[in-house]
């Protein structure tokens, strides 16, 4: 509990304290109340970062979770050959560090010795460079999907395994088809895991940092210092020395994330109860 306090509660308290001050050239720290928050809400760079991760969230999270669910259902159906091999292989990217994944995909995206360049040379096609500013978000989305699809799949799959098979037998006796079983039994049965996976994915999207930060050196023109709010907070405190403002951005993001996570949790659980 002591360690918990030191690494968990203290930083939160300290950053709230910091966010209320401003470091001045003369006179050191001065109490400025909510000035930093006012500044953040008027900061177009902060908003553009927030807008970018929101877009990312709306597109990438449903695709990734949808795919994960599809694979989990396919595995659970028992009609797949090499089930065990398939399951472990799809999960493997989770063990790959974000740094390595981003570097790997970054290299493959690149036109210099990447695959895209190879394809364009070989087939005469003109696939645009994924690291260009217009495509970079898609490129990052692909990396994140690759990393976490298997992890989510495994969560869904484990949840499906504990559904009592007697339910399926009863449904089969009632003449329910495969899709009916999926929509009426399997999906409601794993609602809890769906909610948890959604919350974790949303948190992950809001805190997006590793992939853009690493790709920055490969695509300096596409990724700005305020590409995501987290990257912005990082650059503020380490390049800009604006610790107080950086703490403010971190707090705003933390609060937004928690509010959304709670809303989803409450909604997900309530619908679960209504269905019972």
């Amino acid at each position, binding site marked *: 509990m002591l360690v918990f306090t030191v690494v968990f509660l203290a930083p939160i308290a300290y950053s709230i304290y910091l966010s209320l001050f401003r470091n001045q050239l003369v006179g050191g720290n001065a109490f400025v109340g909510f000035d930093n928050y006012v500044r953040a809400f008027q900061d177009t760079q902060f908003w553009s970062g927030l807008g970018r991760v929101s877009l990312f969230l709306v597109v990438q999270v449903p695709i990734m979770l949808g795919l994960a669910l599809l694979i989990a259902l396919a595995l659970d159906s028992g009609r797949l050959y090499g089930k065990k091999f398939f399951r472990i292989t799809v999960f493997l990217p989770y063990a*790959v560090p974000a*740094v390595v994944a981003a*570097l790997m995909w970054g290299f493959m995206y690149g036109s210099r010795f990447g695959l895209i360049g190879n394809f364009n040379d070989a087939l005469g096609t003109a696939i645009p460079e994924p690291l260009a500013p217009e495509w970079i978000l898609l490129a990052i989305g692909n990396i994140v999907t690759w990393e976490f699809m298997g992890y989510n799949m495994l969560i869904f799959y484990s949840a499906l395994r504990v559904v009592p098979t007697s339910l399926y037998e009863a449904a089969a006796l009632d003449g329910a088809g495969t899709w009916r079983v999926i929509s009426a039994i399997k999906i409601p049965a794993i609602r809890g895991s769906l909610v948890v996976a959604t*919350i974790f994915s949303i948190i992950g999207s809001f805190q997006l940092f590793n992939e853009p930060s*690493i790709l920055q050196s490969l695509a300096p023109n596409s990724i700005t210092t305020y590409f995501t709010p987290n990257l912005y907070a990082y650059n503020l405190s380490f390049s800009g020395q604006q610790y107080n403002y950086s*703490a403010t951005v971190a707090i705003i993001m933390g609060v937004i*994330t928690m509010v959304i996570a709670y809303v989803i949790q409450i909604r997900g659980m309530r619908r679960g109860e209504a269905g019972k």
Partner: protein
Amino acid sequence: MMLTALSSIVLVYTIVPLFWLVVNASKTQSSLFSSFGLWFSGDFALWDNIQQTLAYDDGVFLRWFGNTLLYVVAGAGGATVLAILGGYGLAKFNFPGKKGIFAIVIGAVAVPGTALAVPTFLMFSQLGLTNTPWAVIIPSLITPFGLYLMWTFAMEAIPTELMEAARVDGASEFRTFWQVCLPLLAPGIVTVLLFTVVATWNNYFLPLIMLKNPDWYPLTLGLNAWNNQAATAGGEAIFNLVITGSLLTILPLVVAFLLLQRYWQSGLAEGSVKE
């Protein structure tokens, strides 16, 4: 048929990048640029690359490897021990304020580590802890998710009657835990350990902000530094070493996951997904 097609596509999608990594770890810096990415080409230089990776800059890669091991053993190991003790205590003993703690733990699961990293850095720099291994190890010790997992797992796996039976037989509290409960918790422990190890091994953000001195870098930071080297003026481009280093970095984890899969899969199924 549709299922097979679907799963083949997914399989290819998963494997291609890893395959690319293996193929390109076998190429020299010059054939990296000149050959097709998805097949072997030129001299098979994997062993040379490994040697170079290990020897580059006076063997700094091995130093980073050692650092990573230190952070993993101290951070993930410590985190697992704390999660076991905490989870066991919360699951099997009643004390005032338990509900409050439960609410905090669930809330804490929702607060991601990265959100805390910047504030933690600011605090640690006041304490003078930054740029030391402690700055990486201490924050790694807390894993709300691990605690939650152990908690639910301990509730399911240890029958209270068994503990009572042990106590009636005169076993001390410590002995009950050590000889009766711990073995029952084994699958859960392996799961938590594996996931904290992955989290620590792959951690990038925390060491990035905490550490300035390359001597304390873990592998992830080191690899990124090597990659950035090509972009700086006068820096030597060592992409072949970046790629080989990446391969060496993921190898231990992949092996661990493959060898221990029986444990963590059942642990995950029993612990995390029960509502």
